[in-house]
């Protein structure tokens, strides 16, 4: 049974991590496409081309997001049947709302944008891209409310059979955890969109393939990039962290690998946690900074893992610690990269500064890593609970699905996704190779 539980968890972890490659880009690109379409309203054909090019990239990612997303919804039933039965009345609502309010909107207007260009006026096109943006950001919101309820359950009561029922739906939609996590997640997606756009522009500039379009991509990408990277740390990351330290203090202690309680808690910058001996190997720490970050004063007492019974500790503290540090470290790096690029843009030297363009181009994969690491932090930090403090993870999986059957589908997904990755890389190369200019033959 323990075996089956592990495979069910790996199953969800693997498929959700792979899935999130796509929505983070679509949610990140959606507002940028609206901006490009807004700029195109003045009649500049280059922005028209740019909007069309990025809509095409969006479309490909949207389809990949849909076909890897349906398995996510279905997996609640297939692999987490007990969880679905107990929480369906609550978790099912935002999931159904995502389909009803966001995906219909997004798919309908994306179809219009991709196929109906000739049938839409310039303003019609702008409106369609705005609807796609609305749909994609709404879908993010509904998913976050579902996850936030698992992290910090509110507005529920338990029925006689142990299942959860909603007591006030507005309570679920206005869960403070949801609002904080939503802002943090969306600005994370915005970082991915901005880095991809800026990086692609840098590629077109460096290769000389389409310098005029490349400049616009870099410009829009860098400006959006500095806004989102800054917002990711302050206020969204800061607020989310402080709130988390209040409602999931044991998670915060595990993320920071703070084994011992005390005043003036240090912030660990580097070092590997040794949970067995409750210490950090070769640590580099910033003294008292953790106390300051959480409570605003360097002397504040922060509760370490020793203040909590062991069975409430997150189950994989090293992975949680690394995920969190990768996320936070990269997030800091993004601000530095974008601040540098923005200052060069401001002084008008960015397009000639080849090392900066190289840096932007090579930075493309890192927001993906940071976003995945962020989600790992959130979900590993929730362990050992499915619904925090109420429903243990071990009580949620499908008892009727054996370890062997779960492994069968896990291996199947690994194979299908490996193939999908190869094909998508080929397609991305093809789209990038065709370039953003409107070619008469296309």
């Amino acid at each position: 049974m323990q075996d089956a539980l592990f495979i069910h968890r790996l199953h969800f972890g693997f498929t959700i991590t792979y899935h999130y490659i796509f929505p983070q880009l679509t949610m990140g690109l959606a507002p940028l496409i609206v901006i490009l379409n807004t700029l195109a309203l003045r009649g500049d054909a280059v922005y028209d081309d740019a909007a069309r090019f990025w809509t095409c990239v969006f479309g490909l990612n949207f389809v990949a997001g849909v076909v890897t997303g349906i398995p996510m919804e279905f997996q609640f039933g297939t692999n987490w049947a007990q969880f679905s039965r107990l929480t369906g009345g609550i978790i099912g609502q935002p999931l159904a709302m995502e389909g009803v309010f966001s995906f219909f909107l997004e798919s309908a207007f994306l179809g219009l944008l991709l196929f109906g260009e000739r049938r839409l006026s310039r303003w019609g096109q702008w409106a369609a891209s705005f609807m796609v943006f609305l749909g994609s950001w709404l879908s993010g919101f509904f998913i976050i409310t579902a996850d936030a309820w698992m992290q910090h359950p509110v507005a529920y009561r338990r029925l006689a059979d142990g299942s959860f029922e909603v007591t006030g739906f507005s309570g679920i939609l206005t869960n403070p955890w949801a609002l904080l996590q939503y802002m943090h997640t969306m600005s994370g997606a915005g970082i991915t969109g901005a880095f991809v756009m800026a990086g692609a522009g840098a590629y077109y500039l460096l290769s000389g393939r389409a310098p005029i379009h490349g400049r616009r991509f870099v410009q829009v990408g860098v400006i959006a990039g500095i806004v989102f990277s800054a917002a990711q740390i302050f206020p969204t990351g800061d607020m989310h962290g402080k709130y988390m330290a209040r409602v999931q203090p044991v998670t915060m202690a595990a993320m920071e690998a703070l084994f011992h309680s005390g005043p003036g808690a240090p912030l660990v910058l580097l070092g590997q946690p040794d949970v067995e001996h409750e210490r950090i190997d070769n640590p580099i720490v910033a003294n008292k900074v953790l106390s300051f970050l959480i409570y605003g004063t360097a002397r504040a007492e922060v509760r370490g893992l020793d203040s909590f019974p062991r069975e409430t500790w997150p189950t994989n503290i090293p992975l949680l610690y690394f995920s969190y540090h990768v996320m936070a470290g990269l997030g800091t790096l993004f601000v530095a990269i974008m601040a540098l690029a923005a200052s060069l843009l401001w002084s008008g030297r960015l397009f000639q500064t080849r090392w900066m363009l190289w840096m932007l181009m090579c930075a493309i994969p890192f927001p993906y890593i940071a976003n995945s690491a962020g989600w790992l932090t959130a979900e590993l930090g929730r362990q050992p609970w499915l619904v925090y403090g109420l429903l243990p993870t071990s009580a949620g999986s499908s008892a009727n699905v054996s370890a062997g059957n779960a492994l069968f589908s896990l291996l199947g997904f690994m194979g299908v996704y490996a193939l999908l990755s190869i094909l998508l890389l080929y397609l991305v190369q093809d789209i990038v190779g065709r370039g953003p200019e409107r070619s008469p033959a296309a």
Partner: protein
Amino acid sequence: MNTVWFLLVALMLIAYAVLDGFDLGAGALYPFAQTDEERTMIFRAIGPVWDGNEVWLIAAGGTLFFAFPLLYAASFSGFYLPLNIVLWLLIFRAIGIEFRSHVRAQIWRDFYGMIFFVASALLIVFFGAALGNVIRGVRLGPDHYFFAPLWTDFRPGPSPGILDWYTVLCGLVALAILSMHGALFIAMKTEGELQARMQRVGGRMLPAVVALSIASLAATLSVRPDLLHNYGAFPAGWLVPAATIGSLAGVAHFWHRRNDRAAFLASSAFIVFMLCGAAFALYPTLLPTTTAESNSLTIYNAAAGPRSLVIGLFWWVPGMLLATGYFVLVYRLFSGKVSTAASDHGHY
């Protein structure tokens, strides 16, 4: 309230069958398109709408999840194997559609077209077999859970598998109906040679649809004789099968008159009424059992708490009105024949 949600979930699944049905059917007919240009026309006909149609499956799944959590939990985990296969097929089908348009070498275009065809046809058979499983029932335990193997002895006895002769027959019925449905859709959306061929294909499918429907009806009554209970209790229910026959006659009538649009609408009505008939026969059961009657999942023992169900209506109704609005808008904008000119169809 439980009945309301039974109707709403049925409505969404029926909408999915009609809408994604025609693009799945178009995929199953893909080999009938003979030139690369004709094949491209098929993609252009379904291009702007197919992923929107697929959203009905997602939305129906989510609605089922929250309205009937126990049904969602029990059936999705019990149908674990076929559901995962369906998910992979959906991925392959999307790969076929997206990639064919992006490659230029003929052999790769044919390759992705073939993936699209195989995945579409298999999906139809699986969906038909899924419906067959829901009608026939599964081996539900006292806790309402089960785990169905892909097959056992191919007989719909007390411990059936996903595939037995009855559910395979249901799969073939679905293949015939959606092929006809898809052919009528492509005929409606195209001109010339391809339109004429699709009209012929649609016509040839008609007798197959009639024969297989009768066979499956007879098989259903032999496997689950008690399904007539609701029809006995509410004789007005017989209007549904009457309407089913009527709409199929409509398909034949309009096909003869070469009125593609009306024939397609009649075939949509046929699918709607047929599934309504099945839903009417099942009600209030959601998933029948082959074991003790009390193990069956019904709209009463599988539903979410009463409060959740009431709250759900407040967003479902306006949300679906909006969604219907988008669909009307999109289908109106893309109504009429697809053109052979290259520039009007995005990257297809």
